[in-house]
């Protein structure tokens, strides 16, 4: 099994004609994801040419696209200035999952969008995330397919390339994944570590979980406590930013130590206290996962 996306995913691409959107649409189709349509205002009625000359219909609005294709998931590649509007439109359209890749969505806009999504019962993944891939089934976003393989590990991460680093090390050792989820590097994200852990808990095939966190906020600490109270399968954790200075934003808008809270040390301590096995280096994740599976 897997979480969030699989062979039942019917995907809509918002921003399908843009540079990133078109490139990754081709990649997703190639991987076997069922891309049912695209949305670019003003280009409704045209079609997007897939890698095997498939014609993916393009719509002006998400509403039309959902009505016509029965899409249940939308992925957003539109530029930051339009991303908040694209997310609102997706939440309003009746899809169950909205994956927002775009980095640089204003935080105040996100406060309203998250509230809206909660009211509608829609899950937002991201923004500022690499998306999600269920190896062998479907990929939504930008995670490179070469680094994954099907298997028993669930992966959750706030980062993009650091996730690739961890996942390829697992794959090289023959340890595959049920689903790899990038939850995003922004301070306000739609899907938290706990949301993903809850899903993995209900997934019979996931035998162990890898959590990759970073400095800033308390999402990892909250997750650690949740794990100790609710989860029976082993969890391996890694935190990036042990050498990050306080008060400085480290690339991701959410990666900032405010005052003395949100440090890597605090998060690692919280992991250890709650039975999460802590990797000192990304490469150590593999060994800890192997031990956990034995």
């Amino acid at each position, binding site marked *: 099994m897997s979480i969030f996306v699989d062979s039942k995913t019917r995907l809509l691409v918002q921003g399908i004609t843009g540079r990133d959107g078109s490139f990754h649409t081709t990649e997703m189709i190639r991987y076997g994801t069922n891309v049912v349509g695209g949305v670019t205002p003003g280009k409704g009625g045209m079609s997007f040419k897939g890698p095997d000359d498939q014609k993916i219909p393009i719509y002006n609005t998400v509403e039309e696209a959902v009505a016509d294709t029965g899409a249940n998931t939308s992925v957003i590649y539109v530029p930051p200035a339009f991303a908040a509007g694209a997310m609102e439109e997706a939440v309003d359209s009746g899809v169950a999952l909205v994956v927002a890749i775009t980095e640089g969505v204003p935080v105040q806009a996100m*406060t309203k969008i998250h509230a809206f999504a909660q009211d509608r019962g829609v899950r937002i993944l991201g923004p500022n995330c690499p998306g999600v891939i269920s190896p062998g089934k479907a990929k939504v976003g930008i995670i490179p397919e070469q680094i994954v393989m099907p298997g028993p590990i669930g992966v959750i991460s706030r980062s993009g390339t650091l996730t690739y680093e961890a996942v390829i090390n697992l794959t090289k050792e023959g340890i595959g994944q049920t689903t790899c989820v990038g939850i995003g590097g922004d301070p306000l994200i739609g899907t938290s570590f706990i949301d993903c852990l809850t899903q993995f808990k209900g997934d019979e095939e996931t035998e162990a979980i890898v959590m990759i966190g970073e400095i800033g906020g308390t999402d990892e600490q909250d997750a650690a406590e949740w794990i100790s109270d609710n989860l029976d399968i082993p969890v391996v954790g890694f935190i990036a930013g042990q050498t990050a200075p306080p008060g400085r934003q480290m690339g991701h808008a959410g990666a900032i130590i405010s005052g003395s809270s949100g440090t890597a040390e605090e998060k690692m301590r919280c992991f250890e206290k709650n039975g999460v096995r802590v990797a000192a280096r990304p490469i150590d994740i593999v060994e800890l996962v192997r031990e956990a599976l034995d």
Partner: protein
Amino acid sequence: MDIHEYQAKEILRDNGIPVPPGRVTKDPNDAVNIAKDYGDTVVVKAQVHSGGRGKAGGVKLAGTSDEVFAAADQILGLTISGHTVKEVLITPAEDIDSEAYLGILIDRESQSPVVMVCSEGGVDIEEVAEKSPESIKKLIVDPRQGLLHHQAYGLAGALYNDPSLVKQATVIIKQLYQAFVTSGASMIEINPLISTPTGEVKAIDAKMSVDNSELFKYPSIEAYRDVASEPWAETMAREAGLSYVKLDGNVGCCVNGAGLAMATMDLVKYYGGEPANFLDIGGSSNPQKVVTALQIITSDPNVEVILFNIFGGITRCDDVAKGIIEALGQLEIEAPIIIRLTGTNEEEGLKILSAEGMSAFTSMDEVVEKAVSETSN
């Protein structure tokens, strides 16, 4: 982006909040002239992006022209938490009856704006939050409703008993929320909010950060950016779309992706080295970005070795390799460059490097260990 006190006060004034007048200057003689407009006693305040200005000697009361000159002269050029003071704000000294704290920020947990008030003002609010959290009253705002009148009234009532003060504070709290949402702020703070013996409520200090993702909407706030106080390397990085933070070590790091960049710094430390910087070249990196990144890294005289850790996803290894070769042609780089290149277009990237007699590692641990071994300590 942080803005200066005097700039934050302009935004408060624009939203109707009572703020005493004030003007900034870089010149002590000019400070004396400004002070003449403001009556008996003025306050001379360092304009730097740092807290703790008072403790650092960056805020002084001055009664006479000589005192104003001396205060401005002492404060200008002062270094506060690594920031050099280039401007001072001259503002009339106020008679103070009480000091309070009023702030709004985005709370990660509730994913909403939170308004905070505390009847102890003029002190470090983080300290108060730690020692006596019960003295801070917090209100989570539904971002879709905005701050409602009765909520502002309730918060004001936590600060004052006198009905006239409560009434004034209610208006100020609503105006501050308005300022928050109409300037794309991520944090806005009045500390202290004072009441005077004549029964007025005023903001005499202000602090504000604006969400970088909102700046494109507010050119007037973008214009507040203090490029002169920003280190050259950070201006250069920002304009090139790179994230750069200078640190104290000697291993220059060039990485794609923020998480991987942090993990690379941590691994440098793990192998006994010290990272010189955080640098994320971002997703779709063209060769020119890599050249700029190398320019920035080599501008730091502490850098003894340059470490590339590239895991190609959207970033293509051949683009990075091209950038490295171009940079070597354009810049004088003495430090050895140790490269790890894997992922998208890895083979093409390696070919470009080997044509120039260079090679690359494929594992992160190997490349970091090698880079640390190239340093003198």
